[in-house]
């Protein structure tokens, strides 16, 4: 499989949320090359070119990471911590996705350097709009350091 030129890296363990999120992104016109991973461990393999990603070019970085907070094995927060403490990777915008704003996750994510924190709305219209706006802001409006 070709892992080059991936623009949006989407890490989400829930198949349902993944289907709905990808559909919302596509419907909003973000046909940029998107890659979906299902857990944090795989995300770390991706960035550090391990396992099935051993042949990937490590200098080839996505423009945006959508990271679910609650995942089995390696959680989104652990992935975030790793990414934001790595000088090579810390400038990639990371949008945290979560099912609720309960618990201490919000403060923790921002303290670790998350660029945004989105509670996935239950209502499909709101959910669609939220995903569309994330794409719009981070892929088009946001100006990353060159």
């Amino acid at each position, binding site marked *: 499989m070709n892992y080059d030129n991936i623009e949006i890296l989407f890490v989400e363990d*829930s198949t*349902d*949320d993944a*289907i*709905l999120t990808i*559909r919302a992104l596509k419907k909003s016109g973000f046909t940029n090359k998107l890659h979906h991973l299902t857990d944090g461990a795989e995300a770390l393999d991706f960035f550090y070119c391990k396992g099935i990603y051993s042949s990937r070019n490590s200098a080839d970085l996505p423009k945006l990471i959508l990271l679910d907070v*609650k995942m089995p094995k390696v959680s989104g927060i652990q992935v975030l911590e790793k990414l934001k403490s790595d000088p090579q990777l810390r400038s990639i915008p990371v949008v945290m996705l*979560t*099912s*609720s*704003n*309960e*618990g201490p996750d919000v403060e923790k994510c921002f303290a670790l350097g998350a660029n945004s924190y989105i509670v*996935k*709305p*239950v*209502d*499909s*219209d709101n*959910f*669609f709009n939220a995903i569309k706006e994330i794409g719009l802001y981070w892929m088009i409006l946001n100006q990353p350091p060159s």
Partner: protein
Amino acid sequence: MTKNDSDKLIIANKEIAFQNEEKENRAAELNIANKELLYQTSEKKNRAAELVIANKELIFQNSEKEDRAAELVIANKELAFQNEEKEKRAQELIIANRELIFQNEEKEKRASELVLANKELAFQNKEKEKRAVELLTANRELKKAEDDIRVLNEELEQKVTERTAQLLAANKELESFSYSVSHDLRAPIRAINGYTKILVEDYGESFDADGELVLQSIIHNSKKMGELIDDLLAFSKLGRKEVTFSTVNMDELLGEVIAEILPTENENIPKFDIKLLPSAKGDKSLIKQVWINLISNAIKYSSHKKETRIEIGASLKGNQVTYYIKDEGAGFDMQYYDKLFGVFQRLHSQEEFEGTGIGLAIVQKIIHRHNGTIWAESKLTEGTCFHFSLHKA
């Protein structure tokens, strides 16, 4: 010569003869006297010698006596001096004596006083001894009580520690429960809602009108369940949130709230009549939530009326300030008043007015967490007035 003359001569002669005889007698006597005188002279001479001796003796004795007299004079003077001294001394002694007598009297008085005092002391001593015994007993009892208290305290402390641990555990459990509810219930509902939306969008033509209605119901109900979960979480979070008190400027806060919630594209724009509002002590963000919920309710329940009129005011009493918000909306039947502030309790049907029934429960919880009170009065179809009290700033 005459006879007289001769007679005179004879008489004179006789006289002379007599004198002669007398002279002779006299001479004889003189002679004897002379002899006697001679004797006496000799005797006197003897006597004189004796007298000289005696005189000498007397002179000697005299001188002795004079010496003695001088000595006596001296002795006398000395005695007189001694006498004076003795008198002085006697005088002094008299004074001293008086003084001693006085002192003696005083001492006796004092002694009797001391005796009394001594008795008193002895009595007091006894009392003190009694008291000491009582105190000792009391002390022992106190010590025992103290020990008991210490033991009880320790037990209590232990219990508090245990209870705190239990509460902490319960709280943690509750938090993780909330977290789970929030995460794990929301996700499937989101999926149901999302997939139904896909059905409507991508496969809408395959459904007839009834089928379309069912899809809309699924979407609506799943959305509703999401709201209920969120409301429930918001309500349970409120109980755990710490209330931070500060002075809340109510005029300012109300202005903020109205600007935030005022419907923009609604023909029924509410007409507010806002009186001067005193400041209160409270948690600004929580009090803001109270106003948001109450004003939203007032607007919502007035939506069937031609006009929306909302009056907001306050009154001061003691250290309490009581605010009120009065609408002319649908009102409610006061016989269901006890359900008004209940969680998920509603006095109107969903078709009449939408809502989850959490708004007033949240309002009441916030007011109670401020140690305030909230109540309402209403008349069906005429309107409702809510009152709530807070500590004035």
